[in-house]
């Protein structure tokens, strides 16, 4: 295809993103999630619903999302599910922090960029400040869910080593 229109948007709409948008991973509901939450952006109507099931080691055993919204918000949610699977909640939160730093335009180390995985493709969003909220929606939703989970189960960050029931 030789259509050169919107070339300037190729940074924003990287193939990884369009791919996740068109073929979202881990879409659907998880039965009996330990962590669940919903995020909503009132200004554009984008929505992400997350469910996480933890294993005996408090790692994410399975994860699913539902939602609607623009390519950025939905691709970001899909990437999230892939990245977070198998990780502890702390590790998930660290990834969330990494993405926030990326969006703020902060320098990341090579090791950090590596950890970002497919999320690196979201860096094009930085030039479109209005869309940063889209990129962060799923991650903010995850953070909320984890916080709520901790509050409900009384499990602080440090103490969070025993498996859920």
């Amino acid at each position, binding site marked *: *295809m030789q259509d050169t229109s*919107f070339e*300037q948007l190729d940074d*924003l709409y990287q*193939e990884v993103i369009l791919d996740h948008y068109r073929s979202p991973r881990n879409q659907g509901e998880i039965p009996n999630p330990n962590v669940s939450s919903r995020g909503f952006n009132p200004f554009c109507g984008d929505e992400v619903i997350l469910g996480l099931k933890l294993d005996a080691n408090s790692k994410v055993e399975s994860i699913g999302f539902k939602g609607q919204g*623009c390519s950025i918000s939905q691709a970001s949610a899909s990437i999230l599910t892939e990245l977070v699977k198998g990780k502890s909640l702390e590790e998930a939160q660290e990834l969330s922090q990494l993405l926030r730093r990326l969006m703020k335009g902060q320098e990341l180390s090579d090791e950090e960029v590596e950890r970002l995985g497919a999320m690196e493709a979201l860096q094009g969003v930085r030039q*479109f400040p209005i869309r940063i909220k889209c990129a962060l929606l799923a991650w903010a939703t995850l953070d909320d869910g984890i916080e709520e989970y901790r509050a409900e189960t009384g499990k602080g960050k440090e103490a969070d080593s025993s498996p859920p029931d």
Partner: protein
Amino acid sequence: MLDVAKIRRDFPILSKLVYGKPLVYLDNAATSQKPSSVIQALVDYYEGYNANVHRGVHALSMESTQRYEEAREKVVRFIGAPDSENLIFVRNTTEGINLVASTWAAANIGPGDEILLTEMEHHSNLVPWQRLAKDKDARLRFIPVTDEGTLDLSNLDALLNHRTKLVSMTHMSNVLGTINPVKDIAQKAHAVGALILIDAAQSVPHMPVNVTDLGCDFLAFSSHKMLGPTGIGGLYVSSPVLEQMEPFLSGGEMVQEVTFDSATWNDLPMRFEAGTPNIAGTIGLGAAVDYLESLGMDQVREHETQLTGYALDALKELSEDFNFYGPADLSIRGGIISFYSPDVHPHDLGTLLDQEGIAIRAGHHCAMPLTRDKLGVAATARASFYIYNTEEEVDLLVSTLKKALRYFSKTPTGTTRSG
């Protein structure tokens, strides 16, 4: 026929480039652009006679008071109100509706009473009534919207009954463009003893509106959507209703006499305008009314009808990819076109069009229940026209929508992209 080329020269922003491309401003339902005469009115005020109104004996204050009240007269005449006491200046349509909810409605609506709305209301004409209904144990009812995007009035006799105390409805939908038969409904409302409030945020800027002819009790609109400054708007209230209304906000300007213990209220409409008003904004609104009147509201309406017809025709090409909402009958439709494609989310579409200098809106347009529950999508894209928009701009919209579809349907493999 409007001389659009000439009009465009009156709007400084229209010569602006966006990413090096001419601005194509199709977000008029959100807010309109301003002609030089309106901007100049603000400059003239601040550079020439800025002073607080109503209480000064010095030259500046006399001049600002006079210009402020002249602006009120202009707006009064523009909407066909009988007298200047019938026009209360508010910040925007939203405040106008809230004013009615807090004063007349709070005093006159009680348990079991009904407020009749429509399914196509903007949040500003929905949320205040939800709160009031909850406070007062009243009930909200809704005139349904048909698939065509018009009001389904087949069941109106049941919806509008002796328990109905207020009908509050939009004159023109900001999502569908539908122009509602508010005059008929006003008559029917009065026949059952209800009052009627018209949300004219989208109608006053775009077509002739005469409150006396419509026979409404309240009518609210915003300056920023009708070529005027932000932060100012109007609420028309009919005289008999006005007389019964207790004040809204209280403080300076709205009182007659004050002791430490109590106060008496000033004359109308000042009674409803507490504190220093948006003086410059009001005078700017007066200038906007002058500008619109110089064009003629019939002409404005005709231009937009024609352009909307042109656009609906041109967009037919895209009917396989997009849903278009709103009535086909141009006689009951304003210059607003909402559309949706499952292939390109409206938000992405907004970003793509923006790159070509085209400003549209994407989202629920502050009408979430309509968008989500009736149209069945979380968001739509919306193009909305005004006096300065042209067929060329519509053509560019159509061709760019096509490009956007192509861009988003590129297979992710098989082509290398530079990003």
